[in-house]
């Protein structure tokens, strides 16, 4: 993947496919590291599945035999001397509290660090494709020249919108501006 934001899109698609009502995408950056957490309340994985999940030759698909999502994220993290961890509770083990959490740590100053890229575009793609699923996004950048704190919760947006779908283009465009403004500050201060 050319950008970490594409890995985020790919892994979060798995959360949605696992039936998650809410998927949290959290990015915590300091001067030298980036910690990515993707945590969902989907169906989770059994212990057998969890064991094989970082093996590039493992997949849930039956059409062909290779699934690459988590192995690609693991590779991206480990090539910066970082790590990836996956925890999961399968719905059959705990019907109340199930889901999957993927965490990955990256060293940003490592030469093989893949830039985060366009994370706003990833969020818009997720909302466009899955308007009935909720996403909580938080990105904090600290310890550098610019401190950034970005927050988006589709549950709040959904409440304001009533039954207008989140993937109406006007809503998508608004969310794009809402996020960009949090990253860059308002474009027109007089507005």
């Amino acid at each position, binding site marked *: *993947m*050319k950008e970490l934001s*594409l890995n985020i*899109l*790919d892994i979060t*698609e798995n959360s949605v*496919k696992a039936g998650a009502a809410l998927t949290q995408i959290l990015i915590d950056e300091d001067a030298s590291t980036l910690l990515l957490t993707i945590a969902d309340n989907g169906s989770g994985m059994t212990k057998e599945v969890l064991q094989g999940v970082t093996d590039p030759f493992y997949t849930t*698909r039956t*059409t*062909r035999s290779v*699934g*690459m*999502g988590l192995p*690609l994220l693991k590779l991206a993290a480990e090539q910066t001397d970082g790590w990836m961890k996956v925890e999961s509770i399968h719905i059959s083990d705990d019907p109340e509290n199930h889901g999957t959490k993927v965490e990955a740590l990256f060293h940003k100053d490592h030469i093989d660090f893949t830039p985060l890229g366009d994370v706003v*575009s*990833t969020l*818009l*793609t997720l909302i*466009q*494709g899955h308007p009935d699923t909720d996403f909580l996004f938080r990105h904090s950048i600290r310890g550098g020249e610019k401190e950034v704190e970005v927050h988006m919760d589709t549950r*709040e*947006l959904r409440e*304001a*919108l*009533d039954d*207008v*779908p989140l993937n*109406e*283009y*006007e*809503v*998508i465009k*608004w969310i794009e*501006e*809402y996020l960009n*403004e949090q990253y860059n500050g*308002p474009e027109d201060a007089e507005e």
Partner: protein
Amino acid sequence: MKSLAELQKIKANMKQRIVLREGSGDIRVVVGMATCGIAAGARPVLNELVKDVSEEGLSEKVTVSQTGCIGICQYEPVVEVFEAGKEKVTYVKMTAEKAKEIVEKHLKGGQVVEEYTIGAYQS
């Protein structure tokens, strides 16, 4: 600053239009968004399609949606166009620029852009 109150304004505007749109959507455009599609560049293709369909005023007859792996990873990004009574059209090796052209010529103008279809790549 953007406030949630603005969303409520959008809501009020949208509600009427959505009622009009019920039961439409003659053309379905589907973008492959599995690992293979994403790695090959499906994200900007999807976002361009969503933008252009809306800006060209096609939202009432065209819906854009996402799917998993279509099974031809070497041709990703892949976009399929389904239209009632017509054969499915499969566009391959897509880019945002090609997507713009397809909205203009195919979805709006009704002319399949043959040079971007899988048939053109396989022959």
